[in-house]
Protein backbone atom coordinates (compact mmCIF):
# COMPACT_ATOMS: atom_id res chain seq x y z
CA UNK A 1 0.00 0.00 0.00
CA UNK A 2 1.27 3.37 -1.00
CA UNK A 3 1.30 6.08 1.61
CA UNK A 4 0.13 8.52 -1.03
CA UNK A 5 -3.59 8.83 -1.21
CA UNK A 6 -3.59 10.44 -4.65
CA UNK A 7 -1.01 9.68 -7.27
CA UNK A 8 -1.19 11.07 -10.78
CA UNK A 9 1.43 9.90 -13.27
CA UNK A 10 2.08 11.51 -16.62
CA UNK A 11 -1.60 12.17 -17.19
CA UNK A 12 -2.55 13.23 -20.72
CA UNK A 13 -5.96 14.09 -22.01
CA UNK A 14 -7.40 15.31 -25.32
CA UNK A 15 -11.00 16.44 -25.60
CA UNK A 16 -12.90 14.84 -28.50
CA UNK A 17 -12.25 17.96 -30.58
CA UNK A 18 -8.50 17.32 -30.05
CA UNK A 19 -7.93 20.17 -27.58
CA UNK A 20 -4.95 18.89 -25.56
CA UNK A 21 -6.21 19.87 -22.10
CA UNK A 22 -3.62 17.88 -20.12
CA UNK A 23 -0.21 17.22 -21.57
CA UNK A 24 1.54 15.13 -18.92
CA UNK A 25 0.63 15.91 -15.33
CA UNK A 26 2.26 14.16 -12.36
CA UNK A 27 2.02 14.68 -8.60
CA UNK A 28 1.37 12.84 -5.34
CA UNK A 29 -0.75 13.90 -2.44
CA UNK A 30 -0.51 12.45 1.06
CA UNK A 31 -3.26 11.70 3.56
CA UNK A 32 -4.67 14.81 5.18
CA UNK A 33 -2.90 17.26 2.90
CA UNK A 34 -4.70 20.30 1.66
CA UNK A 35 -3.58 21.18 -1.85
CA UNK A 36 -4.56 24.06 -4.11
CA UNK A 37 -4.52 23.83 -7.88
CA UNK A 38 -4.15 27.23 -9.46
CA UNK A 39 -3.53 28.53 -12.97
CA UNK A 40 -4.90 30.63 -15.77
CA UNK A 41 -8.32 30.18 -17.37
CA UNK A 42 -8.07 27.12 -19.58
CA UNK A 43 -4.93 25.79 -17.88
CA UNK A 44 -6.66 22.45 -17.34
CA UNK A 45 -7.63 22.58 -13.66
CA UNK A 46 -11.22 21.43 -14.08
CA UNK A 47 -10.15 18.77 -16.56
CA UNK A 48 -7.64 17.44 -14.06
CA UNK A 49 -10.21 17.25 -11.27
CA UNK A 50 -12.55 15.25 -13.48
CA UNK A 51 -9.87 12.61 -13.77
CA UNK A 52 -9.60 12.20 -10.03
CA UNK A 53 -12.97 10.52 -9.78
CA UNK A 54 -12.82 8.72 -13.07
CA UNK A 55 -15.33 10.83 -14.93
CA UNK A 56 -12.86 11.36 -17.74
CA UNK A 57 -10.66 8.52 -18.89
CA UNK A 58 -7.03 9.52 -19.50
CA UNK A 59 -5.77 9.48 -23.07
CA UNK A 60 -2.53 8.37 -21.46
CA UNK A 61 -1.07 8.07 -17.95
CA UNK A 62 -2.42 6.80 -14.66
CA UNK A 63 -4.36 7.86 -11.62
CA UNK A 64 -4.16 5.98 -8.35
CA UNK A 65 -6.51 6.79 -5.45
CA UNK A 66 -5.68 5.12 -2.15
CA UNK A 67 -5.17 1.45 -2.86
CA UNK A 68 -6.81 1.49 -6.23
CA UNK A 69 -5.43 2.09 -9.64
CA UNK A 70 -8.21 3.94 -11.44
CA UNK A 71 -9.73 1.52 -13.97
CA UNK A 72 -13.30 0.85 -15.10
CA UNK A 73 -13.44 -1.91 -12.47
CA UNK A 74 -12.38 0.23 -9.55
CA UNK A 75 -14.18 3.41 -10.50
CA UNK A 76 -17.03 2.72 -8.14
CA UNK A 77 -14.71 2.35 -5.16
CA UNK A 78 -12.80 5.42 -6.17
CA UNK A 79 -15.91 7.57 -6.42
CA UNK A 80 -16.78 6.56 -2.91
CA UNK A 81 -13.41 7.74 -1.70
CA UNK A 82 -13.37 10.98 -3.65
CA UNK A 83 -16.12 13.48 -2.90
CA UNK A 84 -16.43 16.02 -5.67
CA UNK A 85 -17.98 19.46 -5.22
CA UNK A 86 -18.72 21.15 -8.54
CA UNK A 87 -18.33 24.79 -9.42
CA UNK A 88 -22.00 25.49 -10.11
CA UNK A 89 -24.03 24.11 -7.21
CA UNK A 90 -27.07 24.03 -9.49
CA UNK A 91 -25.42 21.23 -11.41
CA UNK A 92 -24.83 19.28 -8.26
CA UNK A 93 -28.17 19.71 -6.53
CA UNK A 94 -30.35 17.84 -8.95
CA UNK A 95 -32.96 16.39 -6.65
CA UNK A 96 -36.06 18.24 -5.65
CA UNK A 97 -35.39 18.73 -1.96
CA UNK A 98 -32.25 19.28 0.05
CA UNK A 99 -32.86 16.07 1.97
CA UNK A 100 -33.23 13.93 -1.15
CA UNK A 101 -30.13 15.47 -2.57
CA UNK A 102 -27.95 14.76 0.41
CA UNK A 103 -29.46 11.27 0.64
CA UNK A 104 -28.70 10.48 -3.00
CA UNK A 105 -25.14 9.24 -2.49
CA UNK A 106 -25.73 7.12 0.63
CA UNK A 107 -28.78 5.49 -0.98
CA UNK A 108 -26.70 4.53 -3.98
CA UNK A 109 -24.13 3.07 -1.66
CA UNK A 110 -26.82 0.79 -0.31
CA UNK A 111 -27.28 1.99 3.25
CA UNK A 112 -30.52 1.25 5.06
CA UNK A 113 -33.09 4.04 5.23
CA UNK A 114 -32.29 4.65 8.91
CA UNK A 115 -28.56 4.90 8.22
CA UNK A 116 -29.23 7.19 5.29
CA UNK A 117 -31.34 9.50 7.42
CA UNK A 118 -28.69 9.58 10.13
CA UNK A 119 -25.99 10.39 7.60
CA UNK A 120 -28.04 13.13 6.01
CA UNK A 121 -28.80 14.74 9.35
CA UNK A 122 -25.15 14.63 10.32
CA UNK A 123 -23.92 16.07 7.02
CA UNK A 124 -26.46 18.88 7.11
CA UNK A 125 -25.55 19.70 10.69
CA UNK A 126 -21.85 19.76 9.85
CA UNK A 127 -22.33 22.49 7.26
CA UNK A 128 -24.98 24.21 9.38
CA UNK A 129 -28.05 23.96 7.16
CA UNK A 130 -30.24 21.43 8.97
CA UNK A 131 -33.14 23.86 8.89
CA UNK A 132 -33.20 23.81 5.09
CA UNK A 133 -33.86 20.07 4.88
CA UNK A 134 -37.19 20.25 3.10
CA UNK A 135 -36.51 23.20 0.84
CA UNK A 136 -36.23 22.79 -2.91
CA UNK A 137 -32.69 23.76 -3.98
CA UNK A 138 -33.91 26.44 -6.36
CA UNK A 139 -35.03 28.49 -3.41
CA UNK A 140 -31.67 28.64 -1.67
CA UNK A 141 -29.18 31.48 -1.78
CA UNK A 142 -25.81 31.00 -3.46
CA UNK A 143 -24.08 30.47 -0.12
CA UNK A 144 -26.70 28.02 1.07
CA UNK A 145 -26.52 26.06 -2.17
CA UNK A 146 -22.78 25.77 -1.80
CA UNK A 147 -23.12 24.40 1.72
CA UNK A 148 -25.73 21.87 0.68
CA UNK A 149 -23.49 20.79 -2.19
CA UNK A 150 -20.74 20.12 0.30
CA UNK A 151 -23.15 18.23 2.56
CA UNK A 152 -24.27 16.09 -0.36
CA UNK A 153 -20.71 14.89 -0.67
CA UNK A 154 -19.94 14.63 3.06
CA UNK A 155 -22.89 12.26 3.53
CA UNK A 156 -20.90 9.60 1.68
CA UNK A 157 -17.99 10.01 4.13
CA UNK A 158 -15.34 10.45 1.48
CA UNK A 159 -11.66 10.47 2.38
CA UNK A 160 -10.83 13.14 -0.14
CA UNK A 161 -12.73 16.33 -0.94
CA UNK A 162 -12.20 17.68 -4.43
CA UNK A 163 -13.61 21.16 -5.08
CA UNK A 164 -13.81 23.36 -8.16
CA UNK A 165 -13.94 27.09 -7.35
CA UNK A 166 -15.81 26.76 -4.07
CA UNK A 167 -15.73 30.48 -3.30
CA UNK A 168 -17.08 31.73 -6.64
CA UNK A 169 -20.08 34.06 -6.44
CA UNK A 170 -20.15 34.31 -2.66
CA UNK A 171 -20.31 37.64 -0.88
CA UNK A 172 -17.29 38.44 1.35
CA UNK A 173 -18.92 37.24 4.56
CA UNK A 174 -20.18 33.99 3.05
CA UNK A 175 -16.75 33.41 1.58
CA UNK A 176 -15.07 33.77 4.96
CA UNK A 177 -17.60 31.43 6.53
CA UNK A 178 -16.93 28.86 3.83
CA UNK A 179 -13.21 29.08 4.43
CA UNK A 180 -13.74 28.52 8.16
CA UNK A 181 -15.96 25.54 7.42
CA UNK A 182 -13.41 23.94 5.09
CA UNK A 183 -10.63 24.59 7.58
CA UNK A 184 -12.53 22.56 10.15
CA UNK A 185 -12.57 19.44 7.94
CA UNK A 186 -9.92 16.80 8.43
CA UNK A 187 -10.26 15.39 4.91
CA UNK A 188 -7.57 15.42 2.31
CA UNK A 189 -8.55 18.47 0.22
CA UNK A 190 -7.83 19.33 -3.39
CA UNK A 191 -9.14 22.74 -4.41
CA UNK A 192 -8.99 24.33 -7.85
CA UNK A 193 -9.51 28.06 -7.63
CA UNK A 194 -8.64 31.58 -8.74
CA UNK A 195 -9.08 32.85 -5.20
CA UNK A 196 -5.43 32.90 -4.14
CA UNK A 197 -6.22 34.47 -0.81
CA UNK A 198 -8.36 31.50 0.05
CA UNK A 199 -5.43 29.30 -0.94
CA UNK A 200 -3.24 31.10 1.56
CA UNK A 201 -5.80 30.44 4.29
CA UNK A 202 -6.58 26.84 3.44
CA UNK A 203 -3.76 25.06 1.67
CA UNK A 204 -0.22 24.51 2.81
CA UNK A 205 0.71 23.28 -0.65
CA UNK A 206 0.00 24.65 -4.13
CA UNK A 207 0.26 23.09 -7.57
CA UNK A 208 0.50 25.60 -10.40
CA UNK A 209 -0.81 24.52 -13.79
CA UNK A 210 0.01 26.15 -17.06
CA UNK A 211 -1.15 25.03 -20.45
CA UNK A 212 -1.90 21.47 -19.42
CA UNK A 213 1.31 20.98 -17.45
CA UNK A 214 2.36 21.37 -13.84
CA UNK A 215 4.66 24.39 -13.81
CA UNK A 216 5.34 24.39 -10.06
CA UNK A 217 4.46 22.36 -6.99
CA UNK A 218 5.51 23.38 -3.50
CA UNK A 219 4.64 25.12 -0.24
CA UNK A 220 2.05 27.81 -0.86
CA UNK A 221 4.12 30.65 0.57
CA UNK A 222 7.12 29.77 -1.52
CA UNK A 223 5.06 29.64 -4.71
CA UNK A 224 3.46 32.97 -4.03
CA UNK A 225 6.78 34.61 -3.32
CA UNK A 226 8.19 33.61 -6.70
CA UNK A 227 7.31 36.60 -8.88
CA UNK A 228 8.80 35.08 -12.01
CA UNK A 229 6.81 31.87 -11.69
CA UNK A 230 3.61 33.77 -11.06
CA UNK A 231 4.12 35.98 -14.06
CA UNK A 232 4.84 32.99 -16.29
CA UNK A 233 1.64 31.25 -15.14
CA UNK A 234 -0.77 34.20 -15.58
CA UNK A 235 -1.01 34.54 -11.82
CA UNK A 236 -0.41 37.36 -9.37
CA UNK A 237 0.38 37.55 -5.70
CA UNK A 238 -2.62 36.97 -3.43
CA UNK A 239 -4.27 40.32 -2.82
CA UNK A 240 -3.34 40.42 0.83
CA UNK A 241 0.29 40.08 -0.14
CA UNK A 242 0.08 42.92 -2.64
CA UNK A 243 0.19 45.68 -0.09
CA UNK A 244 -2.37 48.01 1.35
CA UNK A 245 -3.83 50.50 -1.09
CA UNK A 246 -4.31 53.07 1.65
CA UNK A 247 -0.92 53.30 3.22
CA UNK A 248 0.88 51.73 0.23
CA UNK A 249 2.87 49.50 2.52
CA UNK A 250 3.70 45.87 1.83
CA UNK A 251 1.80 43.31 3.79
Amino acid sequence: MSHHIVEVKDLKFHYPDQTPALRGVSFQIRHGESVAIVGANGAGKSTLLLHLNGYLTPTDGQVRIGDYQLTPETVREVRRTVGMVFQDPDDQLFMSTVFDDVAFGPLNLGFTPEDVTARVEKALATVGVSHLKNRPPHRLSTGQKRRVAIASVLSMSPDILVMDEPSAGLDPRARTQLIELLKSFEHTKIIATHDLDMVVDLCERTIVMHDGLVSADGPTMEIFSDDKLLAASCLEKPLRMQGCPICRCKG
Partner: protein
Amino acid sequence: MHMADALLSPAVGGTMWAAAAAATVYCSAKVRQSLDDRKVPLMGVLAAFVFAAQMINFTIPGTGSSGHLGGGLMLAILLGPPAAFLAIASVLTVQALFFADGGLLALGCNIINLGIFPCFIAYPLIYKRIVGSHPTRARLLTGSLIAAIVGLQMGAFAVVTETTLSGVSSLPFSSFVVLMQPIHLAIGIVEGLVTAGVISFIWQARPEILEKAATDQPIGILPIGKILVIMAALTVLIGGLLSWYASEHPDGLEWSMFKVSGQEELETREGLHKDLAGVQEQTALMPDYGFKKSAAGDSGRLGTSVAGLVGGLLVLLLGVVIGLVLKKRGAGGHDHSHPHDHDHSHPNHHH
Protein backbone atom coordinates in the same frame (compact mmCIF):
# COMPACT_ATOMS: atom_id res chain seq x y z
CA MET B 1 -53.02 22.20 -28.97
CA HIS B 2 -53.96 20.71 -25.69
CA MET B 3 -57.03 18.63 -25.06
CA ALA B 4 -58.91 19.64 -21.93
CA ASP B 5 -60.76 17.57 -19.36
CA ALA B 6 -63.84 19.65 -19.91
CA LEU B 7 -64.10 18.48 -23.52
CA LEU B 8 -63.75 14.80 -22.71
CA SER B 9 -66.06 11.99 -21.76
CA PRO B 10 -64.78 9.45 -19.23
CA ALA B 11 -64.80 6.67 -21.83
CA VAL B 12 -62.59 8.52 -24.31
CA GLY B 13 -60.41 10.05 -21.61
CA GLY B 14 -60.00 6.71 -19.86
CA THR B 15 -59.12 4.85 -23.04
CA MET B 16 -56.48 7.37 -23.98
CA TRP B 17 -55.16 7.34 -20.44
CA ALA B 18 -54.71 3.62 -20.61
CA ALA B 19 -52.98 3.91 -23.98
CA ALA B 20 -50.68 6.64 -22.68
CA ALA B 21 -49.86 4.63 -19.58
CA ALA B 22 -49.04 1.58 -21.67
CA ALA B 23 -46.82 3.62 -23.97
CA THR B 24 -45.06 5.15 -20.96
CA VAL B 25 -44.38 1.77 -19.44
CA TYR B 26 -43.14 0.45 -22.78
CA CYS B 27 -40.82 3.40 -23.35
CA SER B 28 -39.50 3.31 -19.80
CA ALA B 29 -38.58 -0.32 -20.24
CA LYS B 30 -36.87 0.52 -23.54
CA VAL B 31 -34.86 3.32 -21.97
CA ARG B 32 -33.79 1.11 -19.09
CA GLN B 33 -32.73 -1.57 -21.49
CA SER B 34 -30.48 0.81 -23.37
CA LEU B 35 -28.40 1.10 -20.17
CA ASP B 36 -27.20 4.54 -21.11
CA ASP B 37 -27.40 6.41 -17.84
CA ARG B 38 -26.13 9.59 -19.49
CA LYS B 39 -29.62 9.88 -20.90
CA VAL B 40 -31.25 10.20 -17.49
CA PRO B 41 -30.20 13.80 -16.81
CA LEU B 42 -30.28 14.67 -20.51
CA MET B 43 -33.95 13.75 -20.83
CA GLY B 44 -34.99 15.75 -17.80
CA VAL B 45 -32.94 18.79 -18.65
CA LEU B 46 -34.00 18.81 -22.31
CA ALA B 47 -37.61 18.59 -21.20
CA ALA B 48 -37.01 21.65 -19.03
CA PHE B 49 -35.33 23.24 -22.03
CA VAL B 50 -38.59 22.99 -23.96
CA PHE B 51 -40.21 25.28 -21.40
CA ALA B 52 -37.29 27.68 -21.41
CA ALA B 53 -37.24 27.71 -25.21
CA GLN B 54 -40.93 28.46 -25.38
CA MET B 55 -40.32 31.71 -23.58
CA ILE B 56 -38.38 32.96 -26.57
CA ASN B 57 -40.66 33.93 -29.41
CA PHE B 58 -39.79 35.18 -32.85
CA THR B 59 -41.85 37.44 -35.04
CA ILE B 60 -43.28 35.76 -38.09
CA PRO B 61 -42.62 38.23 -40.90
CA GLY B 62 -45.67 39.88 -42.37
CA THR B 63 -48.17 38.50 -39.90
CA GLY B 64 -47.45 40.31 -36.68
CA SER B 65 -47.90 37.06 -34.83
CA SER B 66 -45.14 35.13 -33.16
CA GLY B 67 -43.87 31.60 -33.28
CA HIS B 68 -41.92 29.41 -30.94
CA LEU B 69 -40.60 25.92 -30.55
CA GLY B 70 -43.05 23.12 -29.83
CA GLY B 71 -40.29 20.69 -29.08
CA GLY B 72 -41.64 17.22 -29.87
CA LEU B 73 -39.68 16.59 -33.03
CA MET B 74 -36.54 18.21 -31.65
CA LEU B 75 -36.61 15.97 -28.59
CA ALA B 76 -37.05 12.94 -30.84
CA ILE B 77 -34.01 13.95 -32.89
CA LEU B 78 -31.84 14.57 -29.83
CA LEU B 79 -32.99 11.69 -27.65
CA GLY B 80 -34.45 9.00 -29.87
CA PRO B 81 -38.10 7.87 -29.74
CA PRO B 82 -38.57 6.13 -26.38
CA ALA B 83 -36.61 8.69 -24.35
CA ALA B 84 -38.18 11.59 -26.23
CA PHE B 85 -41.64 10.18 -25.62
CA LEU B 86 -41.00 10.14 -21.88
CA ALA B 87 -39.59 13.65 -21.97
CA ILE B 88 -42.66 14.91 -23.84
CA ALA B 89 -44.93 13.10 -21.42
CA SER B 90 -43.23 14.81 -18.50
CA VAL B 91 -43.50 18.22 -20.17
CA LEU B 92 -47.23 17.62 -20.62
CA THR B 93 -47.61 16.47 -17.02
CA VAL B 94 -46.09 19.67 -15.71
CA GLN B 95 -48.28 21.69 -18.05
CA ALA B 96 -51.36 19.86 -16.87
CA LEU B 97 -50.58 20.41 -13.22
CA PHE B 98 -49.27 23.95 -13.23
CA PHE B 99 -50.30 25.70 -16.40
CA ALA B 100 -53.98 24.78 -16.44
CA ASP B 101 -53.25 23.27 -19.84
CA GLY B 102 -55.69 20.47 -20.14
CA GLY B 103 -56.16 18.70 -16.86
CA LEU B 104 -55.46 15.32 -15.39
CA LEU B 105 -57.84 13.21 -17.44
CA ALA B 106 -56.90 14.90 -20.69
CA LEU B 107 -53.25 14.18 -19.96
CA GLY B 108 -53.66 10.77 -21.55
CA CYS B 109 -54.97 12.28 -24.79
CA ASN B 110 -52.26 14.92 -24.81
CA ILE B 111 -49.48 12.42 -24.28
CA ILE B 112 -50.78 10.31 -27.16
CA ASN B 113 -51.51 13.26 -29.48
CA LEU B 114 -48.28 15.14 -28.93
CA GLY B 115 -45.96 12.27 -28.05
CA ILE B 116 -46.70 9.22 -30.18
CA PHE B 117 -46.91 10.93 -33.53
CA PRO B 118 -43.67 12.92 -33.49
CA CYS B 119 -41.66 10.19 -31.73
CA PHE B 120 -42.87 7.03 -33.39
CA ILE B 121 -44.09 8.19 -36.78
CA ALA B 122 -42.72 11.55 -37.82
CA TYR B 123 -39.16 11.04 -36.61
CA PRO B 124 -38.34 7.44 -37.51
CA LEU B 125 -40.47 7.10 -40.62
CA ILE B 126 -40.06 10.56 -42.13
CA TYR B 127 -37.24 12.60 -40.63
CA LYS B 128 -34.74 9.77 -40.41
CA ARG B 129 -35.55 8.48 -43.87
CA ILE B 130 -35.07 11.90 -45.44
CA VAL B 131 -32.15 13.21 -43.43
CA GLY B 132 -30.20 9.98 -43.05
CA SER B 133 -26.85 10.00 -41.29
CA HIS B 134 -25.19 12.56 -43.57
CA PRO B 135 -27.43 15.57 -43.38
CA THR B 136 -27.24 18.54 -45.67
CA ARG B 137 -28.99 21.80 -45.05
CA ALA B 138 -31.63 21.02 -47.64
CA ARG B 139 -32.30 17.55 -46.28
CA LEU B 140 -32.53 18.80 -42.73
CA LEU B 141 -35.03 21.40 -43.80
CA THR B 142 -37.20 19.08 -45.89
CA GLY B 143 -37.05 16.33 -43.31
CA SER B 144 -37.95 18.58 -40.39
CA LEU B 145 -40.69 20.37 -42.29
CA ILE B 146 -42.47 17.27 -43.51
CA ALA B 147 -41.99 15.43 -40.22
CA ALA B 148 -43.27 18.32 -38.15
CA ILE B 149 -46.25 18.91 -40.40
CA VAL B 150 -47.24 15.25 -40.52
CA GLY B 151 -46.80 14.86 -36.76
CA LEU B 152 -48.97 17.85 -36.00
CA GLN B 153 -51.61 16.98 -38.58
CA MET B 154 -52.00 13.60 -36.98
CA GLY B 155 -52.10 15.16 -33.55
CA ALA B 156 -54.74 17.65 -34.62
CA PHE B 157 -56.81 14.93 -36.20
CA ALA B 158 -56.61 12.97 -32.97
CA VAL B 159 -57.82 16.02 -31.03
CA VAL B 160 -60.80 16.33 -33.36
CA THR B 161 -61.62 12.64 -33.10
CA GLU B 162 -61.38 12.62 -29.32
CA THR B 163 -63.47 15.75 -28.92
CA THR B 164 -66.15 14.56 -31.28
CA LEU B 165 -66.29 11.14 -29.67
CA SER B 166 -66.74 12.74 -26.30
CA GLY B 167 -69.74 14.65 -27.51
CA VAL B 168 -69.36 17.69 -25.30
CA SER B 169 -68.78 20.10 -28.15
CA SER B 170 -71.52 20.73 -30.69
CA LEU B 171 -68.93 21.32 -33.34
CA PRO B 172 -69.56 18.87 -36.20
CA PHE B 173 -66.73 16.50 -37.00
CA SER B 174 -66.16 17.69 -40.55
CA SER B 175 -66.14 21.40 -39.84
CA PHE B 176 -63.97 20.76 -36.81
CA VAL B 177 -61.50 19.02 -39.09
CA VAL B 178 -61.68 21.86 -41.57
CA LEU B 179 -60.98 24.25 -38.71
CA MET B 180 -58.13 22.38 -37.05
CA GLN B 181 -56.06 20.97 -39.86
CA PRO B 182 -55.14 24.26 -41.58
CA ILE B 183 -54.27 25.89 -38.26
CA HIS B 184 -51.99 23.00 -37.54
CA LEU B 185 -50.51 23.18 -40.98
CA ALA B 186 -49.31 26.67 -40.09
CA ILE B 187 -48.10 25.55 -36.68
CA GLY B 188 -46.37 22.58 -38.31
CA ILE B 189 -44.54 24.77 -40.79
CA VAL B 190 -43.27 26.99 -37.98
CA GLU B 191 -42.28 23.96 -35.94
CA GLY B 192 -40.47 22.42 -38.90
CA LEU B 193 -38.58 25.60 -39.69
CA VAL B 194 -37.54 26.13 -36.09
CA THR B 195 -36.49 22.53 -35.59
CA ALA B 196 -34.48 22.53 -38.81
CA GLY B 197 -32.82 25.82 -37.82
CA VAL B 198 -31.87 24.71 -34.34
CA ILE B 199 -30.65 21.31 -35.46
CA SER B 200 -28.46 22.80 -38.18
CA PHE B 201 -27.09 25.28 -35.65
CA ILE B 202 -26.08 22.38 -33.44
CA TRP B 203 -24.76 20.48 -36.42
CA GLN B 204 -22.44 23.35 -37.23
CA ALA B 205 -21.36 24.16 -33.71
CA ARG B 206 -21.02 20.70 -32.19
CA PRO B 207 -21.64 17.96 -34.72
CA GLU B 208 -20.59 15.31 -32.22
CA ILE B 209 -23.81 15.82 -30.26
CA LEU B 210 -25.96 14.80 -33.18
CA GLU B 211 -23.61 12.09 -34.31
CA LYS B 212 -23.84 10.60 -30.86
CA ALA B 213 -27.59 10.99 -30.81
CA ALA B 214 -27.83 9.37 -34.23
CA THR B 215 -25.62 6.41 -33.49
CA ASP B 216 -26.07 5.43 -29.89
CA GLN B 217 -29.79 5.05 -30.04
CA PRO B 218 -31.27 1.67 -30.55
CA ILE B 219 -33.20 3.46 -33.28
CA GLY B 220 -31.77 1.23 -35.96
CA ILE B 221 -33.33 -1.76 -34.31
CA LEU B 222 -36.47 0.16 -33.38
CA PRO B 223 -39.16 -2.33 -34.21
CA ILE B 224 -41.08 -0.52 -36.90
CA GLY B 225 -43.26 -3.57 -37.28
CA LYS B 226 -44.17 -3.51 -33.61
CA ILE B 227 -45.01 0.15 -33.79
CA LEU B 228 -47.24 -0.39 -36.75
CA VAL B 229 -49.00 -3.16 -34.83
CA ILE B 230 -49.49 -0.84 -31.87
CA MET B 231 -50.76 1.91 -34.12
CA ALA B 232 -53.11 -0.51 -35.81
CA ALA B 233 -54.39 -1.68 -32.44
CA LEU B 234 -54.96 1.91 -31.40
CA THR B 235 -56.78 2.62 -34.63
CA VAL B 236 -59.01 -0.38 -34.16
CA LEU B 237 -59.63 0.66 -30.58
CA ILE B 238 -60.55 4.19 -31.53
CA GLY B 239 -62.49 2.99 -34.52
CA GLY B 240 -64.39 0.53 -32.39
CA LEU B 241 -65.09 3.18 -29.82
CA LEU B 242 -66.21 5.50 -32.57
CA SER B 243 -68.68 3.09 -34.10
CA TRP B 244 -69.94 1.99 -30.72
CA TYR B 245 -70.50 5.60 -29.82
CA ALA B 246 -72.08 6.40 -33.11
CA SER B 247 -74.62 3.63 -32.68
CA GLU B 248 -75.23 4.46 -29.05
CA HIS B 249 -75.43 8.19 -29.57
CA PRO B 250 -76.60 8.93 -33.04
CA ASP B 251 -76.74 12.60 -32.28
CA GLY B 252 -73.05 12.70 -31.48
CA LEU B 253 -70.94 12.28 -34.53
CA GLU B 254 -73.41 11.41 -37.23
CA TRP B 255 -75.96 14.00 -36.36
CA SER B 256 -73.26 16.63 -36.52
CA MET B 257 -72.38 15.45 -39.96
CA PHE B 258 -75.98 15.46 -41.04
CA LYS B 259 -76.44 18.91 -39.70
CA VAL B 260 -73.53 20.20 -41.68
CA SER B 261 -74.73 18.56 -44.83
CA GLY B 262 -78.25 19.74 -44.13
CA GLN B 263 -79.87 16.31 -43.75
CA GLU B 264 -80.98 16.69 -40.19
CA GLU B 265 -84.06 14.66 -39.34
CA LEU B 266 -85.43 15.71 -36.00
CA GLU B 267 -88.37 13.31 -35.85
CA THR B 268 -86.32 10.13 -36.02
CA ARG B 269 -84.01 11.43 -33.38
CA GLU B 270 -86.87 12.06 -31.01
CA GLY B 271 -87.99 8.46 -31.32
CA LEU B 272 -84.57 7.04 -30.89
CA HIS B 273 -83.93 9.00 -27.79
CA LYS B 274 -87.01 7.85 -26.00
CA ASP B 275 -85.80 4.32 -26.49
CA LEU B 276 -82.38 5.15 -25.29
CA ALA B 277 -83.45 7.03 -22.20
CA GLY B 278 -83.82 3.90 -20.13
CA VAL B 279 -80.44 2.55 -21.14
CA GLN B 280 -78.84 5.79 -20.28
CA GLU B 281 -80.30 5.98 -16.85
CA GLN B 282 -78.62 2.70 -16.08
CA THR B 283 -75.29 3.62 -17.53
CA ALA B 284 -75.25 6.80 -15.57
CA LEU B 285 -71.61 7.50 -16.13
CA MET B 286 -72.27 7.99 -19.84
CA PRO B 287 -73.30 11.38 -21.16
CA ASP B 288 -77.06 11.63 -21.13
CA TYR B 289 -77.40 14.89 -22.93
CA GLY B 290 -79.73 13.53 -25.57
CA PHE B 291 -82.13 12.61 -22.84
CA LYS B 292 -82.16 15.99 -21.17
CA LYS B 293 -82.35 17.76 -24.45
CA SER B 294 -85.29 15.86 -25.80
CA ALA B 295 -87.12 16.42 -22.57
CA ALA B 296 -86.38 20.09 -22.43
CA GLY B 297 -89.80 21.21 -23.61
CA ASP B 298 -91.53 19.07 -21.07
CA SER B 299 -92.71 21.29 -18.23
CA GLY B 300 -92.39 18.52 -15.66
CA ARG B 301 -88.75 17.97 -16.50
CA LEU B 302 -88.14 21.68 -16.46
CA GLY B 303 -89.57 21.82 -12.99
CA THR B 304 -87.12 19.22 -11.83
CA SER B 305 -84.29 21.03 -13.47
CA VAL B 306 -85.18 24.31 -11.76
CA ALA B 307 -85.38 22.40 -8.51
CA GLY B 308 -82.02 20.85 -9.35
CA LEU B 309 -80.57 24.26 -9.94
CA VAL B 310 -81.88 25.58 -6.64
CA GLY B 311 -80.63 22.52 -4.81
CA GLY B 312 -77.27 22.77 -6.48
CA LEU B 313 -76.90 26.40 -5.54
CA LEU B 314 -77.83 25.60 -1.97
CA VAL B 315 -75.16 22.94 -1.70
CA LEU B 316 -72.70 25.32 -3.31
CA LEU B 317 -73.52 27.97 -0.71
CA LEU B 318 -73.12 25.40 2.00
CA GLY B 319 -69.74 24.51 0.60
CA VAL B 320 -68.59 28.11 0.61
CA VAL B 321 -69.72 28.53 4.20
CA ILE B 322 -67.91 25.37 5.26
CA GLY B 323 -64.81 26.55 3.44
CA LEU B 324 -64.91 29.93 5.14
CA VAL B 325 -65.45 28.41 8.56
CA LEU B 326 -62.58 25.99 8.08
CA LYS B 327 -60.37 28.77 6.86
CA LYS B 328 -61.18 31.07 9.79
CA ARG B 329 -60.51 28.28 12.21
CA GLY B 330 -57.21 27.53 10.56
CA ALA B 331 -56.19 31.17 10.45
CA GLY B 332 -56.54 31.43 14.18
CA GLY B 333 -53.89 28.85 14.87
CA HIS B 334 -51.43 29.45 12.09
CA ASP B 335 -49.20 32.12 10.83
CA HIS B 336 -50.24 32.71 7.23
CA SER B 337 -47.35 34.68 5.98
CA HIS B 338 -44.74 32.63 4.22
CA PRO B 339 -41.55 34.49 4.86
CA HIS B 340 -39.81 35.12 1.57
CA ASP B 341 -36.37 33.90 1.08
CA HIS B 342 -34.29 37.01 0.92
CA ASP B 343 -31.38 35.00 -0.25
CA HIS B 344 -28.99 36.49 2.20
CA SER B 345 -29.65 34.52 5.32
CA HIS B 346 -26.31 33.14 6.14
CA PRO B 347 -26.72 29.73 7.56
CA ASN B 348 -24.23 30.35 10.31
CA HIS B 349 -26.68 32.65 11.98
CA HIS B 350 -28.77 29.66 12.72
CA HIS B 351 -26.15 27.70 14.57
